[in-house]
């Protein structure tokens, strides 16, 4: 087990940055030239440039989704963002080869240490590109692929191209289109049939530059009967201006495969975090999204599973914590497309100060299917009188051979509860932390041990000074 002091990642820990010289810089603002520049730097084939340019035009045509989402989206100024920054290096296989400023960044975040302790492989992305990417040797021998998206496209085009953009089409939403136009970095993973990874793979996404947009693209394919757990962590320094993080993550679980995708995001409060995540689960495959959203100015993220094969299972377990000035707009999408598919959504949100958390859930079960089940539980905890929460379930169930269950609750930490706990000698922040940890306790157990320790600490830190 790892003690909390070893995993000393907290809200301020990510608040530093190094002045870095970038060899490749696409400049400020978004245009066709920027897209061509990125594609050229990456020496991509014409089909990919074509894909990007089409995506750019889709992005430009699509309106901001403010008819259902928050007006805060209008405050994103696409003209002042830098879309690509890199030193131009290939991802190193050893930390010694990583440039000092980047290496120091990840050292401070504790990544190399975690790799030694409990990971099967690590990819560390610094702004637009991976600076480090390595995996245990025996996994490579078994045919496991774990590289950055650029490398994946170049070295394994036959697998990459087959699935890329198939789970989440470019036109899915404005931000998936943006990502498709300017994406860089992210992971490409392939697990061969029957290979079961005993330890997780981890990616760490780090924003270092101001006014920067990070657009990683992750594609994970778990072939028949294979199993993999992937964990991602994210941080950025606190800049005066806002930063954009807009990822697209596609998962493919072929027959009988299992994918667990764990996210612990700890963004600083100026990050717009607008992410599209979706999986396809074939027959008897299982996909679990385990998601913890802390920090950011606005997070919009609704991990989904398309349950395409008979008896496929999908699950979303999520914790969101919205502090002062933050809006966590999260949820889940479960699209049942085969008989006897099951899905489970458990979402818990905590709103502190004037923080707001929203839950949006979509469940679809067409009438021709039978034996499908969905269970959704969403619970909200409000800490202060100004705290907000709202729930928008969209459940479409047809036919009478399927079942859906939806439960929602809202509770508030009461002054009398806090008085009771203080009477036993606990300080106010500590009492709050205990209440909040108690609220999410059952979900925290779903995270790997190393992350659950960190999560509890993050929650404690969020509670400090949040009282009143």
């Amino acid at each position: 087990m790892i003690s909390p002091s070893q995993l000393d990642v907290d809200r301020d820990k990510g608040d530093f940055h190094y002045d870095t010289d970038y060899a490749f810089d696409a400049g400020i603002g978004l245009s066709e030239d920027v897209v061509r520049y990125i594609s050229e730097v990456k020496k991509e084939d014409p089909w990919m440039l074509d894909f990007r340019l089409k995506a750019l035009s889709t992005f430009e045509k699509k309106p901001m989704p403010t008819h259902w989402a928050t007006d805060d989206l209008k405050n994103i100024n696409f003209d002042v963002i830098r879309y690509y920054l890199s030193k131009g290096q290939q991802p190193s296989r050893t930390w010694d080869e990583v440039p000092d400023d980047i290496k120091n960044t990840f050292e401070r975040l504790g990544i190399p240490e975690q790799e030694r302790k409990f990971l099967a492989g690590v990819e560390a992305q610094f702004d637009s590109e991976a600076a480090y990417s390595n995996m245990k040797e025996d996994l490579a021998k078994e045919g496991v692929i774990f590289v950055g998206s650029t490398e994946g496209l170049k070295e394994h085009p036959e697998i990459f191209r087959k699935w890329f953009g198939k789970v989440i089409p470019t036109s899915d939403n404005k931000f998936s289109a943006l990502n498709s136009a300017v994406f860089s970095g992210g992971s490409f993973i392939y697990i061969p049939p029957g290979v079961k990874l005993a330890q997780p793979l981890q990616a760490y996404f780090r924003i270092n530059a101001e006014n920067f947009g990070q657009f990683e693209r992750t594609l994970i394919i778990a072939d028949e009967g294979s199993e993999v757990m992937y964990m991602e962590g994210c941080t950025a320094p606190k800049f005066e201006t806002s930063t954009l993080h807009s990822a697209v993550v596609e998962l493919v679980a072929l027959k009988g495969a299992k994918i667990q995708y764990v996210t612990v995001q700890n963004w600083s409060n100026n990050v717009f975090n607008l992410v599209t995540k979706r999986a396809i689960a074939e027959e008897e495959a299982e996909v679990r999204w385990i998601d913890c959203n802390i920090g950011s100015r606005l997070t919009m993220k609704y991990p989904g599973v398309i349950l395409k094969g008979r008896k496929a299972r999908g699950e979303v377990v999520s914790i969101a914590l919205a502090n002062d000035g933050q809006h966590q707009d999260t949820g889940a999408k479960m699209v049942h497309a085969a008989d006897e598919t099951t899905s489970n959504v458990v979402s818990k949100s905590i709103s502190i100060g004037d923080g707001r958390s929203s839950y949006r859930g979509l469940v679809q079960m067409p009438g021709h299917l039978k034996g499908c089940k969905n269970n959704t539980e969403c619970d909200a905890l409000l800490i202060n009188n100004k705290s907000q929460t709202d729930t928008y379930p969209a459940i479409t169930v047809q036919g009478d051979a399927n079942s859906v269950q939806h439960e929602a609750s809202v509770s508030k930490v009461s002054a009398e509860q806090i008085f009771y706990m203080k009477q036993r000698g606990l300080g106010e922040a500590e009492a709050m932390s205990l209440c909040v940890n108690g609220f999410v306790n059952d979900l925290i157990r779903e995270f790997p041990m190393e992350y659950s320790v960190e999560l509890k600490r993050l929650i404690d830190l969020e509670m400090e000074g949040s009282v009143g």
Partner: protein
Amino acid sequence: MNSLKIDNLQASIDDKSILRGLSLEIPKGEVHAIMGPNGSGKSTLAKVLSGHPDYEVTGGTATLDDDSLLGLEPDEISRLGLFLAFQYPMEVPGVSIANFIRAALNARLKEGEKIKAVEYYKDLYAHMDDLGMDRKFTSRSLNDGFSGGEKKRCEILQMSMLSPKYAILDETDSGLDIDALRVVSDGVNRMRNPERGILVITHYQRLLDYIVPDYVHVMSEGKIVRTGGKELALELEDRGYDWIKQEAVAS
């Protein structure tokens, strides 16, 4: 000195005066009982001494040994050594009894000190055995879905684990059947010793058959109007509170 001393205490809530010059001293080693009709301010006294934020102290003093309690935060008062067993213990979902008590003990440690898990559980189990509590209770959420009796036992468990200098038991008998009353009273009696002062607040004499007090005080209209030995409780049981109220008015 070695007492919980309240002198001419006045307190109000929402500008409504509740405590109107209450004086009382509980030296270590003694058990005092406060009885009185509903609305006389008994529970308010417990809350004011514990630093409840809803009440405003408008006059008087309250000291624990030599430390003034007034104006302190509830957690500071707790750490000075005052424990309040609540009439209605709050439910805290998801926080196990074991973790909660451990956190409370931790809050009393100096920087760098640590609770040893093995010894902690040994101690906790011993106290639970005394109170006839199933060990499975340690992992249950604090008071969450507990019966009235379970809640009160859990209060006494916390009290014995925290080992306060002074303890106030606010209507601990309410909601208890006779068996639970006996177990809870035994728990309190085990804590009687020369180093601890105990104040029992109750509406009924019944509890005082089990926790026999050294002194009984009668409270009315926000002050102590009569003090006597344990036989005073029996007299109140017999005659009710009205005669005392009338005497208080007459004087």
